[in-house]
């Protein structure tokens, strides 16, 4: 392992790779800091840039963007009271009051340092858990993979939204879109309308760029003409020592940080929920366990620590199912999966055997990106604040052009650009109908995996569905999938009763 780690570091410490990772972290922080841009969008937009890079450097760029963007959200959360990404919602609760009290630098310093610690903790967990899980997963056959895909899909559909019906519908629709093209096993054409361009189905990247970036531009257009630009507050960095907080404050936060890291890691591993949920859960837990919960929300550093540690601890967590099973835990890792596939790499347990040096290059890139994030985010703060002032009516059209370039670059054909527009309109429709986008994306990605393994599993058990239930691991995941839906149904029904009682009283 140490040898592999050395190979990994040797790969990312070449001047070219180092430069690429630095670029990734800086761009990531910018995407994280600007409200409306996210880690998912950053990675989707930069995928085309990796076409001409080797897989190691290309993937290093993507993880650097991931690390930067997850942390970058804290800048606007503290300076503007607007979370840059959903991962920093809870950071605003105490970050903004601290800012108003004149402790902006301290809040930013604490946020950056604990983001770093959360990331490092989760990378350590990833490096420890992933190889073990990969070894276990080596024995998995089609039955297990089918059930894991179904489990992940139901979990994301039930967790990502308030409406179970809409979540499941979005997941099923994503799955339906993935059936376009040549079918697995029999290789007949499905839903291609005799268009040769559709034989290969819709490219994953066109779906994601459309749903995330184009839909975002259209959503912005709704309020663009009515918007007023938020002016970031001025922060003076004069006379700031270290990261702007004392050693005593740091040590006092360690129990809170450990707890928040575990929460962030655990939620990050689960498919369907990630940093967007863990920062809030971790904040609530920190408040409950605090001796002075009444001070939360009024500018207590504990709140910033809880939120920022947890959201970054999700990075390593989300990478675990991605690397070991090829299952993306959230939309960001879903785009990352696209990045792997573009370079002809199929994540899964075999990756740890056939491409071990690459896996450790990714680990090394994660560590290097975290260190760069720590230094660049705090000391480059002025530059990021300046960029927050770039008007979005200039920024978003340029991003749209980059989407078009990225889509075109897939196969050098305008067809993919049309596909991006189609999915952009669909994504905008989703926003309007209150349908969640994440289950759609995961359904689109896991659909082919579920279908192929269903067909293979049925062939192995001579067309008998019982094979999925007699296999213990497969049965376990299917039971969990059924349980997650029933549990959700029960809570919905219970809530409805209490809502009815409330209505009767009023």
């Amino acid at each position: 392992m140490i040898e592999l780690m050395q190979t990994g570091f040797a790969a990312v410490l070449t001047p070219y790779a180092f430069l690429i990772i630095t670029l990734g972290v800086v761009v990531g922080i910018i995407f994280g800091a600007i409200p409306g841009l996210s880690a998912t969008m950053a990675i989707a937009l930069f995928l085309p840039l990796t076409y001409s890079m080797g897989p190691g450097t290309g993937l290093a760029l993507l993880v650097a963007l991931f690390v930067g963007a997850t942390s970058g959200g804290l800048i606007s959360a503290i300076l503007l009271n607007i979370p840059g990404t959903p991962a920093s919602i809870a950071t605003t609760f105490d970050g903004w009051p601290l800012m108003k009290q004149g402790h902006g630098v301290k809040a930013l310093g604490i946020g950056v340092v604990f983001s770093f610690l959360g990331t490092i903790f989760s990378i350590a967990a990833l490096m420890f858990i992933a190889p073990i899980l990969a070894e276990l997963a080596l024995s998995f056959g089609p039955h297990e993979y089918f059930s894991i895909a179904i489990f992940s899909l139901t979990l994301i559909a039930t967790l990502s939204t308030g409406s179970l019906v809409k979540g499941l519908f979005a997941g099923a629709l994503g799955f339906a879109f993935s059936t376009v093209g040549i079918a697995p096993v029999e290789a007949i054409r499905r839903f291609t309308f005799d268009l040769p361009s559709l034989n290969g189905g819709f490219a994953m990247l066109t779906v994601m760029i459309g749903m995330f970036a184009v839909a975002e531009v259209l959503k912005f257009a709704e309020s663009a003409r009515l918007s007023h630009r938020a002016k970031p507050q001025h922060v003076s960095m004069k006379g700031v020592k270290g990261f702007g907080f004392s050693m005593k404050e740091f040590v006092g936060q360690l129990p809170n940080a450990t707890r928040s890291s575990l929460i962030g890691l655990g939620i990050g591993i689960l498919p369907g929920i990630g940093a967007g949920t863990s920062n809030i859960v971790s904040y609530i837990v920190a408040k409950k366990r605090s001796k002075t919960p009444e001070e939360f929300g009024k500018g207590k550093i504990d709140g910033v620590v809880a939120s920022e540690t947890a959201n970054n601890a999700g990075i390593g967590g989300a990478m675990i199912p991605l690397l070991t099973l090829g299952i993306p835990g959230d939309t960001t890792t879903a785009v990352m999966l696209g990045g792997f596939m573009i370079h002809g790499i199929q994540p899964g347990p075999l990756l740890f055997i056939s491409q071990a040096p690459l896996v450790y290059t990714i680990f090394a890139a994660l560590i290097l990106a975290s260190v760069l994030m720590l230094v660049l985010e705090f000391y480059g703060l002025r530059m990021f604040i300046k960029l927050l002032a770039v008007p979005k009516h200039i920024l978003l059209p340029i991003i749209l052009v980059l989407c078009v370039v990225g889509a075109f670059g897939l196969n050098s054909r305008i067809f993919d650009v049309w596909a991006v527009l189609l999915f952009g309109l669909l994504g905008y429709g989703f926003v309007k109908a209150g349908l969640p986008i994440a289950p759609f994306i995961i359904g689109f990605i896991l659909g082919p995996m579920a279908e192929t393994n269903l067909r293979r599993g049925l062939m192995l058990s001579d067309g008998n569905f019982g094979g999925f239930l007699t296999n213990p691991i497969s049965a376990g995941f299917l039971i969990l999938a059924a349980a997650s839906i029933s549990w959700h149904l029960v809570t919905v029904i219970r809530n409805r009763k209490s809502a009815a009682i409330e209505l009767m009283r009023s």
Partner: protein
Amino acid sequence: MDSYKRNELIAGLAMLGAGIAYLVLTMNLPRRGTIDAAFVPWVLAVALCLLGALQLWVWRKLPDKSAEPVEKPEAIDYPTVIKSMALVLLYTALMEPLGFVITTVLYLYAQFIVLTPADEKVKHLRYALIAVVSAVLIFYIFRHGFDLLLPVGLLDF
């Protein structure tokens, strides 16, 4: 009917419509036994239709007036959305005949104007400059840095 309930109705109809459309397409797939290439699409089509119907059923159960005081809905500027959609469609349609640089400059310039907040002035010169610089820069970076053959169209340089 309040706007929330109307939205839920439209969502339900769209969901059921998508389900039925997929079902019709699935019915046209050739069959070769119970478990064949059409099996999963059938399961999905039925699931989509059922979920769409369920959404309409949930809609029927919604109270006519929301119990909670409805927050004032944010004004949505649909003309700007439609203009932006039209620009993006035109941009894509014209890219091959006119080439990447020309269409991108035109698209960016027009889109900047469309999205400019009402209380800010449209700065024509600055917009034009940003549009030209971004288009040329993106073209050069991708064409020469990343070997991406973006359409050159009329400007064959």
